[in-house]
């Protein structure tokens, strides 16, 4: 296997329920590792803890227990100042690009500001050149620079979100439900783009989705989460061909394929313990 880039061991993550009360634990004893250049899917139903786990991996929420190592450094208890040099190397693409792109800024500004902030461009001109290059890489026309987020389609906005993450030349990108809500043709384009970028840039990715068929299309390995725990893990090929957990089986069987099957609707899942 590729050299390990990100590694989590026995993570518990939770949310405070009130002053001096114990936190509700929503991610329980999760261990995982992601190699350089590897795309790992995290799948599970809504509320299973995927987003919480992702935020913990990026050091955005502090785990209650366990450790996270990134490129050899234990980042579990680093403060913001110590995290700063690592921030550029760990990027995130969000589910709703509209909520993560400042509606009052043109795309040019949205893309150049982080380049300047992280010192990847010394002048605005340099930043614009880099931003243009990245737009091209994600398949957007240069004219997009002069647009506001609301002037773009959902798929175009999602590309801007991806451009903003990858232009910083990160080692790791977390993508959280980035194709839910997109049309199938746009979804296909964005997923292809993710595949190309991870291959060309040797990116390691955690790809969160509630949709197993999307995971199958882009990921090398998959982790199946249920109620905060990992119930199954393995190479996509193996997990889809022969899932060990009845829960995984039920998730796969519930995906409607675009091929009429007169028995699909009536087929009941095996009881999941």
């Amino acid at each position: 296997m590729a050299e390990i880039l990100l590694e989590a061991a026995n993570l518990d993550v939770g949310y405070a329920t009130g002053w001096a009360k114990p936190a509700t634990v929503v991610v329980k004893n999760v261990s995982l590792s992601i190699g350089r250049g590897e795309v790992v899917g995290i799948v599970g139903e809504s509320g299973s803890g995927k987003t919480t786990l992702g935020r913990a991996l990026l050091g955005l929420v502090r785990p209650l227990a366990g450790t996270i190592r990134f490129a050899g450094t234990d980042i579990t208890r680093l403060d913001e100042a110590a995290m700063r040099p690592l921030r550029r190397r760990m990027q995130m693409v969000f589910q709703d690009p509209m909520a993560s792109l400042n509606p009052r800024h043109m795309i040019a500004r949205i893309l150049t500001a982080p380049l300047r902030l992280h010192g990847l461009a010394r002048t605005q001109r340099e930043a614009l050149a880099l931003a243009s290059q990245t737009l091209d890489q994600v398949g957007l026309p240069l004219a997009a620079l002069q647009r506001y987020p609301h002037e773009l389609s959902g798929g175009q906005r999602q590309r801007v979100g991806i451009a903003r993450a990858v232009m910083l030349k990160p080692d790791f990108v977390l993508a959280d439900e980035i194709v839910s809500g997109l049309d199938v043709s746009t979804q296909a384009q964005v997923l292809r783009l993710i595949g190309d970028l991870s291959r060309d840039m040797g990116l390691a990715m955690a790809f969160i989705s509630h949709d197993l068929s999307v995971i199958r299309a882009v990921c090398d390995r998959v982790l199946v989460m249920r109620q905060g725990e990992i119930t199954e893990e393995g190479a996509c090929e193996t997990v889809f061909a022969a899932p060990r957990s009845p829960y995984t089986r039920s998730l796969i069987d519930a995906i409607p394929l675009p091929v009429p099957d007169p028995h699909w609707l009536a087929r009941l899942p095996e009881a999941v313990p």
Partner: protein
Amino acid sequence: MSAALLSIEHLSAISEREGGASILRDVSLSVAPGEVHGLVGESGAGKSTVARAILGMLPRAVRVTSGAIILSGTELLTLEPKRRRSLLGAHVALIPQDPLSALNPSRRIEAQLTDGLRMWKGCSAAEARRRALALLDEVQMREPERVMRLYPHELSGGMRQRVLIAAAFALEPRLVIADEPTTALDVTVQKQILRLIRDMQLRHDTGALFVTHDLGVVAQICDRVTLLFGGRIMEQGPTADLLLRPQHPYTRALVAASPRYDRPEDGLAPVPEAVMARCRQEIAAFDRGLHG
């Protein structure tokens, strides 16, 4: 089809917001009793506009310019508004995409299920309550007595959608219009909901117009399909024909773009630009025919 429950004939509509741009271009389709007709297409194709036109719920800026919508022999567009409302109220129900926005947040489930029964079916309070409980049971809601006392925010997404299905079938409608009813749900819940809709629909011989952008859902629940692009029908026919033997390149492209966990090397082909160009050409040709 003579036995059609719903028949939409040559429906065209424009958006006054976009300077009179066409948003439906000569759309015709029909739904027979007991049939599920899928209305598919990408966002902006005009699916919801068709659904809203039937229900008389078009946005202010959207205007029907020609065509007819015939429900059990009665043309709706030219019907006097009061009569139209009572006809729709008695015979057509909507299952919307977002159950939370469709339920009144400040009223208990019981009130929301019994209102329609009392208003449209003339049930007494006790009779309405009894029927509401039976319906919750029919949509396989656990502890229906308890659910009746809850407010919408106290239910999960899947439970809310069950309540709306119960509400939709409460009035024994002849036609159910479902506008992306499972888009926001997890796949396992989606499957339960699809099964419920199919069961209820078969049991009551209700016709359904099922709006979705998911060809997987279409394959498993629809008898016939209409595919829209830019408000124009690109292809229409029995589900198996459309999905397995598509005639139009756009249909073929959408099938090829759908993810396939069973054949990962086959899905996810982006729709070729040439296919998009052909769709746009067809629309332009239609508009030219319209204007001169």
